[in-house]
C-alpha cells in the first residue's frame, strides 16, 4: 500500500510540476543501456542480412550513383564559383552561424506501445540536449525532443499526431502547418489561393525547433474542397522512419525565441 501510494504521489507530483519524475529519470537512464545493446545486435544482424540480399541491386545502384555523383560534382563546382562571386559574403557567414553545431545521436529505442510515434536517443541532457531541440538526419526533419534524461532523450517524430511544425511550400512560399498522421504528414491551413502541385517540396518555416528551409517531404495529394477556408495536402516525409538510425540534434533557433524588435 505504501509503495503504491508513493509511486502514485511521485507521478502526480511530476505531472503537477511538469518535470520528469525521479522514477522516469531513473528508468530512462537504466533502460538506455539495454536498448543500446539490443539496437547494436539488431544493427549487425540487419546489416549482414541486407548486404547479402541486396548485392545485385546494389551493383546497379552503385553505377547509377557514380553517374549521378559525376553530374553533381560538376554542378557543385559551378555553384561554388557562383558563391565565391556573390557580393554579400556577410549574409552567408550569418546563415552558417545560425546553423550552429549539433549533437550526433543514435536511435536505440521506440515507443513501448504503438499509440504514439516516438524514438529514444542514446544522448541526453549530459550531452547538451534540451526539450524542443530539433532532430534531423541526412534526408530532412525527423522530429523534436520532448523529454530528456541525463543519458537519453525522447523524440516526437513529425509523423506523430501531436506534432505540429510550421512549414512552407518551397515553390510558392505558401505557409501551412505540418501535422502528423501516424504514417505521413498533412500540410494544413494552406491558403486557398496557393497553387499547389503534386511533387512540390515542403520545408520548415522559422520556428521553435528548426531554422527555415529544412526539407520535410514532398506533396503527394492535394485536397482542395470548394467553399473551405483552407486547402490541405498530404506530404510524404523525406526521412525513412522505418530505418532511422543516426540523427543530429540541433538547438532551437535563438532568433525565434526572441521577441520581435520594433521597426523603425
Amino acid at each position, binding site marked *: 500500500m505504501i509503495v503504491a501510494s508513493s*509511486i502514485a504521489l511521485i*507521478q502526480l507530483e511530476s*505531472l503537477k510540476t511538469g518535470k520528469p519524475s525521479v522514477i522516469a529519470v531513473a528508468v530512462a537512464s537504466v533502460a538506455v543501456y539495454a536498448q543500446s545493446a539490443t539496437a547494436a545486435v539488431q544493427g549487425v544482424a540487419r546489416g549482414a542480412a541486407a548486404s547479402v540480399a541486396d548485392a545485385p541491386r546494389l551493383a546497379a545502384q552503385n553505377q547509377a550513383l557514380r553517374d549521378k555523383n559525376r553530374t553533381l560534382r560538376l554542378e557543385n563546382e559551378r555553384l561554388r564559383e557562383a558563391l565565391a562571386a556573390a557580393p554579400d559574403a556577410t549574409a552567408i557567414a550569418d546563415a552558417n552561424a545560425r546553423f550552429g553545431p549539433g549533437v550526433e545521436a543514435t536511435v536505440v529505442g521506440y515507443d*513501448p506501445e504503438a499509440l*504514439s510515434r516516438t524514438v*529514444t536517443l542514446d544522448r541526453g541532457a549530459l550531452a547538451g540536449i534540451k526539450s524542443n531541440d530539433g532532430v534531423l538526419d541526412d534526408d530532412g526533419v525527423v522530429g523534436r525532443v520532448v523529454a530528456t534524461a541525463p543519458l537519453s532523450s*525522447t523524440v516526437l517524430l513529425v509523423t506523430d499526431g501531436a506534432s505540429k511544425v510550421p512549414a512552407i511550400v518551397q515553390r510558392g512560399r505558401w505557409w501551412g502547418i505540418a501535422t502528423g498522421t501516424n504514417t505521413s504528414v498533412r500540410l494544413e491551413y494552406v491558403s486557398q489561393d496557393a497553387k499547389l502541385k503534386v511533387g512540390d517540396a515542403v520545408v520548415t518555416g522559422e520556428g521553435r525547433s528548426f531554422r527555415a528551409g529544412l526539407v520535410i517531404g514532398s506533396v503527394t495529394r492535394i485536397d482542395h474542397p470548394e467553399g473551405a477556408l483552407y486547402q490541405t495536402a498530404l506530404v510524404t516525409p523525406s526521412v525513412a522512419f522505418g530505418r532511422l538510425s543516426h540523427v543530429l540534434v540541433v538547438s532551437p533557433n535563438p532568433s525565434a525565441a526572441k521577441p520581435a524588435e520594433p521597426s523603425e
Partner: protein
Amino acid sequence: MKVDVARTRALWTANKPGDSAAPAYVPDPPAWWGVALALVAALVLQTSVAPWLAVRGARVSFVTLIVAWYALRTGSLHGVTFGLIAGSCEDALAGSTGVAWTFATAFVGGACGRFARTWLADMRIALVPGAALVTLVRDCAFLVLMQAQGLALPLPALHFHAMLWQSALDALVALIVLQIFPQLGAARAHRR
C-alpha cells in the same frame, strides 16, 4: 506439468465458494523477482524489437499481459502496485504520455486483481478473450487520461483501429503462451 495443473484445479474445486469449511488450499503467488524480470524483458522487447514485428500499426503489449496475469494470481493491491511500477516505466520510455500509462496500467491491475481466486482466473478459455478485453480497457483508459492531461491524441479513429489490432494480437499471444505453458493458466496452490 499436466499433473501439476490437474492437482491445482482439484484443490480449487475442493474449495467452492460458499463452503463453510476452512480453505483446503493455500495459494502460491508468483515470485516477485520472476515477474520483475519478465517486466524488464517485456519493456526491452517492446522498445527494441517489437517495432519490427508491428502488424497494421499495432504491437503486442507484453506489459499488459504480465500485469494482468500477476494481478489475477495475487489480488488487487499487488495488481495496482505492479501496474503503477510497469506503467511508470512505460511513461518514462514513451516520454510524451505524462502519467497516462502509469494510471491506466494500475487501473487494469486493480480490475484484474478483483478476479483473483475466482473461477475466471483459472479458466483458460476465459483468459484468452480476457487478454483482448484487458488490452482494450487499458488503451481506452490511456486515451481518457491523455485527454485529462491535455495531451489529447488528435486521431482517435486511427488509434481505435490500432487498439483493436493490439487486442487481437495480445489474445493471440496469450493463447500461444497458454498452449506452451499450461501451468500459467491455473493458480498454483498447496494443500493446507
